[in-house]
């Protein structure tokens, strides 16, 4: 085509880019904004409730979002590649149930846990197969997996919780012990976050995740095997969910077949609040963890303020809606 008919589009590109530069600044402001909101909430809560700023409460909050935070890491990377995983709650439970059942069958808990994590990763591999080889969407595939895996948990446990009080103390320490008064759970969480944040920013393999999520066609035209990238990220997300499941098992000393139901919504909400785009191509682990922290502070505040459980759900839903609206607004402007 000749330049004559193209030039108006051209002008649009330029106008769009100026706008987008502002949004880039806005996106980095999102993390700063989240920190401000979280701190403001904390300050307000300190005045509102004497129980908020106690070591016990903070520790409980941190413990609470630490294990979910590990799942958020995987979910964020999956969102960046343009996918989504609704099955993480079921997979967390699946990992607990498999490891627990194997332990009760006589296996040592460490081996049992490794098998539990591997089985979770296998669920991810099966989903990855359906997404890349069959060509289904992540949404539908993981929706099906969510239900199927939950069913597996119920089948394995015959519907009753597995009691795992006989787990050795050395294993339970992962979930219950502390190092210099800092729970191992929080330390593990921090290591996972730091490692994956670094990898996501620096590792070549993870750069391909951004390329694929940003523009799959252009990534293919750059020789990136986008299906492979999507497959392995799906496996990683499920694997991290399985890892979280094992920690939950160590913490609770039990494996309940209904555990983790609805967790996926919290996880996705956290990642999206933290700036991950459901259209792929953008997101940071730091932001997602801040999103998680915000949801956690809100939940904790609502409990301390004695707000009814029913209201809690509604308020969390509204926060999610607001965050997704912002996401949509940013991306509508883009295209």
């Amino acid at each position, binding site marked *: *085509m*000749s*330049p*004559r*008919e*193209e*030039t*108006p*589009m*051209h*002008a649009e*590109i*330029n106008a*769009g*880019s*100026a706008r*987008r*530069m502002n949004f*880039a600044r806005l996106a980095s402001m999102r993390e700063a904004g989240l920190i401000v909101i979280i701190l403001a909430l904390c300050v307000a809560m300190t005045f509102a409730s004497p129980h908020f700023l106690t070591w016990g409460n903070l520790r409980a909050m941190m413990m609470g979002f630490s294990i979910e935070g590990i799942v958020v890491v995987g979910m964020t990377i999956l969102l960046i590649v343009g996918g989504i995983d609704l099955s993480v709650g079921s997979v967390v439970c699946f990992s607990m149930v498999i490891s627990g059942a194997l332990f009760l069958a006589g296996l040592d808990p460490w081996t049992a846990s490794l098998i539990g994590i591997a089985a979770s990763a296998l669920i991810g591999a099966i989903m990855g197969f359906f997404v890349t080889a069959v060509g289904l969407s992540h949404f539908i595939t993981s929706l099906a997996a969510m239900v199927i895996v939950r069913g597996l948990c119920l089948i394995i446990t015959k519907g009753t919780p597995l009691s795992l009080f006989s787990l050795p103390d050395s294993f339970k320490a992962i979930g219950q012990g502390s190092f210099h008064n800092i729970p191992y759970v929080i330390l593990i969480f921090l290591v996972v976050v730091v490692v994956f944040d670094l990898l996501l920013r*620096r*590792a*070549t*393999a993870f*750069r*391909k995740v*951004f*390329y694929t999520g*940003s*523009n799959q*066609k*252009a*990534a*293919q*035209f*750059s*020789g*990136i*095997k986008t299906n492979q990238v999507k497959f392995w990220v799906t496996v990683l997300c499920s694997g991290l969910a399985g890892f979280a499941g094992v920690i939950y098992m160590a913490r609770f000393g039990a494996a309940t077949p209904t555990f983790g139901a609805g967790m996926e919504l919290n996880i996705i909400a956290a990642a999206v609040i933290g700036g991950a785009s459901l259209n792929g*191509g*953008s997101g940071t682990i730091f932001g997602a963890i801040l999103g998680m922290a915000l949801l956690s502070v809100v939940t904790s505040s609502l409990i301390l303020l004695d707000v009814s459980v029913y209201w809690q759900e509604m308020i969390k839903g509204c926060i999610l809606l607001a965050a997704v609206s912002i996401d949509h607004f940013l991306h509508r402007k*883009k295209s």
Partner: protein
Amino acid sequence: MTQAPILEIRGVSKTFGPVKALSDVRFELRRGEIHALCGENGAGKSTLMNILAGVLQPSEGEILLDGERVTIASPAAAQRLGIGLVHQEIALCPDATVAENIYMAAINTRRAPLMNFQKLYVEAQKVMDQLAPIPVRTKVADLSISNQQLVEIAKALTLDCKVLMLDEPTAALTESEAQRLFSIVRGLQQRGISVVYISHRMAEIFSLCDRVTVFRDGQYVATDRIADVSPDDVVRKMVGREITQLYPDKLTGAPGRALLSVKGLSDSDCFSNVDLELRTGEILGIGGLIGAGRSEIAQTICGLRPATAGQVEIDGKPKRIRNYSDAVKAGLVYLSEDRKASGVFLDMPISANISALDLKKVTSLGMLNRRAEDRQANELTKRLGVRMSGIGAAVSTLSGGNQQKVAIAKQLSVDPRVILMDEPTRGIDVGAKVEIHRLLRQLASNGVGIVVISSELPELIGLCDRVMVVREGRIAGELSADALGEEAIMRLASGVQDPSNSKQQAAHVA
């Protein structure tokens, strides 16, 4: 002819910002005629069609329908006036039935709250049967492309149109399907419908149409009776512009050894038995109409699409290319024609865009070496003269020309032997265009093989040392530097073989 024309356009102009897509054009469609509208890509045909279909509003000028002045404010208004447009691209709902698609526009204006499906099917079948016996309860997705095209036409017919505009209706059809379409169009003509027929194919125009109007660069050139002109005249009128000296000097002397040679390349649906040879120092052009298979050939050479037969040699050595990574390793890179959709990562930094093709080069121990990545980006952007705020800026912040330079920088980052460029200057302003052309010439003289696919004839002629023309998936011919000309290319591309026997051939096709 004393009767007023059914449709008349007087002094219509259309500007997009500072750009004039149409300036002061006229067009006259007589009652019951088939009138061809010709012009190169970008001549303004589509703009005029969109104005008549109510999609665009003219900046100036008037439209007369049946002698009365009309304003076509929206596609719905065009439908009410009896103007139907069949787009070049099929725009049907694939999951709905033929009947639902045919009556889509009518359903849209209906007031009744419920659908009367029985009546819908009966009525739709009546309309469809005028064209071809396609069962209207079939889903559109289950139809062949040519039948989908007929559904598009049926859709226009339900609007009881007086004027039917067909935009390259045979682009997706085989020869026999096209013949069937021609007899249908003649049938419509006999029913008193006036037809505007847009096509690049001279043979079709000369066998089907009564008159032909030519546009060039958004301006009206001429209207002639088909009986009074030859295909050659029409082609000459379409391209008859002066070529300004915007292009770098061509290769002097003979090209060197063979760099890339392709033999007998075929794929399953788009093209077959393509031979191609590129020598060092020369720029090889590939011309042809949109949809002729040019991009598909280039993408298949680079392993982006599967080939069913053929072999590729680089520097005389046969290479097995199963995917794009193989091609890049062999030194073959492809620059996509659709920069925004598949060429660059708009939201990502310039440096990350440039390194995307060969990440290994900037990786040590699995981690990205940011310093190496930045160094490479700085070198290449400097060499190509990319105007930017810095290599960390998102590509979306650049102008089209600079975005394209980043895309080219990405290709150069792997030190390729051969670059296949698909529309390298599409949508780029003239200044950047000249720079890119100079760059390509410079690369060619440094021994990098350059293949340029272009829809712009002046670009092919001005830039390339040799041009191959593709028509309907086959190499229609090759033009050396001294034989290069817009008419020669158009003749090969549209299938008019030689001025002397073109009439004869046109008659033969009919």
